Structures are given as structure tokens and as C-alpha cells.
């Protein structure tokens, strides 16, 4: 029984860590711009696919992974420069549709540049599961969790300890005020796209040895990441992390104990339940209506 629960826990945390990373990407861009970037899943896809193809072409894995992150960051910056920046001042919903268009576009390009098949990547440190209290844990799960932890810690340091991080926070809190005190909000926005893309690609690289990848893995991840971000409270990095992990755990425990056919339904019902009690998500900013 304990082994079983531990198995669900590890499964949930591993998948949840990826949701959390996607949700973090959503949150960073949202804070800088109010844009919900539905192309966030495509960064994850790029991370996995570029690594797979570079690795297959004989590039050593660490280098292939770095290439993938660079490629994703490049795409993220281009997305900001060519699609978001020209539409500056448009309504949030217009910007969201632009990111949906971007997501379709990136998927379309990926199916040409790469192919339409699934691909795998060897696990970073072997595929032999480690037995912990009767639960079989893949070494790659530790990579995913450790990698996610690294990103969370890095972001925390960035926000808490650097001037640039403060500038990003200031922009998130009040764009106009940040601009008035001399923050280059346009740069902050570009930075958010770059960092979000890097985080997404990083998640894609870590998870591919477990989940495989293809040109269209992004859609579902974006969906789950978005739900996780909402559960945690849009705009809160802590919320994104908690929301992602919680969503992963909900799915795995629902699949293992309630119904595998309706595990996503269980997860969504819990999200709805949370939102009815806390309409701003778990860690969202609760604001009194200012009139």
C-alpha cells in the first residue's frame, strides 16, 4: 500500500514538475505583459525535438541540450519581436490569439523541419529503476525534479537578489509605474519571453527520455500548464509551481485510485472546486475592487 502510494507520488511529482515549469513560463510572460502565451507548449516541444535531432546527428547530449535551449530562446525572442511587439497596445485577447497563431505556426514549421514521428532520447543516467520502499523510480525522475528545483531556485534568486529581477517584479506589479521609474518594460517583456522559452525548452529536454516527444506535444502541455497556472493563481511564480505539482499529483492519484478514464475530469473538478472557494487561485493576488 505504501509502495503503491509512493509510486503515485513519484509519478505525479515528475509529471507535475513539467506542468510547473510550463506554468512558470506562462506566469513570467503574463506578469510582464498580461499575455497568456499559448505557444508556451511549443517551447517544450522545441527543447525535446532539437535535442533529439542534434543528438541523433552525433552532437554530445549536453551540447545538444544547450543548442535546444538556445534555439528555443531564439524563437521566443523572435516571437516577441515579430509578433507581440508590433501588436503592442492591442487588447489581451488579441495578443492571446496571436500566440495561438504562433503555436499553430511553430507546430507547422516543426513538422516540416523535423518530421511527424515520435522520438525518444536515452535517459541521462541509465534506465534501470531505483527501488525505494517498494516503489520503482526512474533515475530520470530525479533529473526532472532536480532540474525543476534548479529553475525554481534560480528564478527565486533572480527575483530576490538582482536589480533586473526587481525590475521584472516592478513591471509585473504596475507597468506604468515601472516605466515611470525608468524600467525598460519592452526589454523586460523580451526578457520574459526569452526566459520562458528557456524554461520550456529545459522542461522538454528533461522529460523527453520519459515521455517521448513529437512535433505536436506542445498543445496538451500548454493546456495543462495553463490549468496549473490558474490553480496556483495567475501571476504568482510560487502558485505556478504549487499548481503544477498539485495537478500532476491529482492526475496520478486519480488514475491510480479512482478512475483512469476520468482522471483528467477529477483533476479539473478539483481545480473548479478550488476556484469557487478562491476565485484568484491558491496564491493569486486577491484584490478588493477599486472604484
Amino acid at each position, binding site marked *: 500500500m505504501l509502495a503503491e502510494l509512493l509510486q503515485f507520488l513519484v509519478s505525479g511529482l515528475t509529471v507535475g514538475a513539467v506542468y510547473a515549469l510550463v506554468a512558470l513560463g506562462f506566469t513570467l510572460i503574463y506578469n510582464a505583459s498580461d499575455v497568456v502565451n499559448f505557444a508556451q507548449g511549443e517551447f517544450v516541444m522545441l527543447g525535446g525535438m532539437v535535442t533529439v535531432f542534434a543528438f541523433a546527428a552525433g552532437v554530445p547530449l549536453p551540447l545538444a541540450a544547450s543548442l535546444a535551449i538556445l534555439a528555443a530562446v531564439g524563437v521566443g525572442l523572435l516571437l516577441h519581436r515579430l509578433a507581440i511587439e508590433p501588436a503592442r497596445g492591442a487588447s489581451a485577447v488579441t495578443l492571446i490569439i496571436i500566440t495561438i497563431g504562433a503555436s499553430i505556426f511553430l507546430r507547422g514549421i516543426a513538422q516540416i523541419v523535423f518530421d511527424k514521428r515520435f522520438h525518444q532520447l536515452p535517459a541521462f543516467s541509465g534506465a534501470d529503476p531505483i527501488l525505494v520502499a517498494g516503489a520503482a523510480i526512474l533515475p530520470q525522475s530525479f533529473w526532472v525534479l532536480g532540474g525543476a528545483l534548479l529553475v525554481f531556485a534560480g528564478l527565486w534568486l533572480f527575483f530576490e537578489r538582482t536589480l533586473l529581477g526587481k525590475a521584472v517584479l516592478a513591471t509585473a506589479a504596475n507597468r506604468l509605474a515601472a516605466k515611470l521609474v525608468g524600467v525598460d518594460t519592452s526589454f523586460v517583456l523580451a526578457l520574459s519571453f526569452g526566459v520562458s522559452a528557456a524554461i520550456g525548452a529545459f522542461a522538454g529536454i528533461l522529460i523527453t527520455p520519459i515521455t517521448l516527444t513529437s512535433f505536436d506535444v506542445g498543445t496538451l502541455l500548454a493546456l495543462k500548464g495553463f490549468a496549473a497556472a490558474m490553480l496556483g493563481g495567475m501571476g504568482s511564480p510560487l502558485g505556478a509551481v504549487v499548481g503544477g505539482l498539485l495537478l500532476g499529483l491529482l492526475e496520478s492519484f486519480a488514475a491510480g485510485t479512482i478512475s483512469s478514464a476520468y482522471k483528467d475530469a477529477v483533476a479539473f473538478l478539483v481545480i473548479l472546486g478550488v476556484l469557487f472557494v478562491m476565485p484568484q487561485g491558491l496564491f493569486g493576488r486577491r484584490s*478588493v*475592487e*477599486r*472604484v
Partner: protein
Amino acid sequence: MNAALPPRGAPLLRAEGIGISFGGLRALDGVGFEARAGEVLAVIGPNGAGKTTLFNIVTGLYRAGSGRILLDGANVTEAPPHHLAAAGLSRTFQNLQVFFRMTALENVMAGRHLREGSGLLADLFRLPRTRRDNEATRQAAMALLDWVGLADKAEIPAGSLPYGALKRLEIARAMATDPRVLMLDEPAAGCNPVETEEIDHLIAEVAARGVAVVLIEHDMKLVMRISRHVVVLNQGRLLAAGTPAEVRNNPAVIAAYLGTHGAAEASRGSARDNARGSARDDARGSARDDPRGDAHA
């Protein structure tokens, strides 16, 4: 007007012992007022005194932590805003809440919502009832736009109207509900003297129609000129209440809010002839810009 006061009627709107806290901060504590038909009641006080919060509680947007609100004798403390509106309570906002996507006319037409009874089905299928409603609403709204001097701007999207016009548009929209109590949150804030004077007129007319007007205003001249009764808030508490003259001379009010300069302004404002003539020159002398007044915020 101050010289020969007509007898006062029964209070139409009564707030008693209103209190509310935001995250441990006591924003309002035991505040109350009475508004009577045909009178203007001014609520004044430095920024952060809790004036708008009081309005938000009375109009049902916030739920009071304590106290009760009586509208025409009925307890409406827990009533949602749209019920209060139906009971005859209407308001404007300090931070404009104009319907920016609509034209000026549509803004006021929306204000006639309570006077329209066509129902959803009639609206969907454009039954005669809806057409009659539309026509009646349009006429009433045009009349109100005309009253506030915006008839020629009827078809202009509200988003492209100048600030002063929007202030008047909000008053027209609030009046479109045929209110018995009209609550105005800084109706003249940010307006130039000419616009302020226009609004001054409008308020006087509203009161003359028998509506109880409750007013938050920083422009002390305006306050002193048109209000029958003044309530002064400071840091969430009632500091003083009384006629403009009483309040103006209340030492506590002077110390906390008006300052000597403000008191001088207020006395000038109450001298009606003087105020009309010199409003333009003295625009910058209003309490809003008084450094001492702001210091209390």
C-alpha cells in the same frame, strides 16, 4: 440659500455606525450620516479618510463589517447594488466607470435599465414591447444628455469624450435611474472652473427636484456653496458634522484638514457672489491642492 433654510424632511438615507476593516486596518469605524430629500449632504475629509469606502458600503459594493443602512426606513444593509439601485439609490465614481465601448447616448440609455421591462425574449425577437422600450429609453436618455449639455455628442463613443464631459455623462447616467438618492464621488475632481460651475448647477438642479444628494468633494468652495449639511471624516472616523458654517469653524476640522488656508477658501466659497466671480482665478486654491490637506492622506 443658507440664509432662509426650508424645514427639513425625514431622512431618506441613513447610515449608522458603519465600520469595515481591510486586512486588519480599520478603514471605517462607527461612521454615519443622514441624507434628506432635496438637500445636498457633503462628505469631506483628507485623502484616505474613508469617504469612497463609505460610498462603496452604502451602495452595496462592499459589505459593511458593522452598522446598518436604512433607505426610506427599510434596512438595506445587506442588499446588493442592483437592488439598492431599484430602491432609488444611484451614484457616480471617483475613478470614472463610464462604459467606454458605448456611445454617450448608450451610456445614459443603459442607465434606464430599471425603467425597461421588456424581458429577454421580447429583446431577442424584437417584440413591440422592446421597440417601445427602446424608443422611450432613447427619448429619456436624449433629454438627460441635453440636460448635461452633451446632446450634440450623443453618437460619439464615450471613450473619445473629454474628461469633463465624462464627469457629466456619469451624472446623466446616474440620473437616468430616476434616483431618490444620488451619491456623487468627487463629481468635479479634475474639472476646470467652468466645468466645475456647470456641475455645481447640475447638482443644485438635482436637489431642487427633491432628490437627496450625497457628495464627496475636495473643492471646498463647491462644498460650502451647495451643501446644506457637511460630514467630516478623518482616518475612518467621524470628525465633525453640521452646517457648512459650523464645520468651517470647527477647530478640529481646521487642524486636521482644512488648515488656515483651506478655511479661508471655504469662507470665500460660502460667500456666493464672490465665488461665482472669482472661481476662475482661484481654481488652484482648492483644498485638493492644499499641501497640508494632502499631507494627511
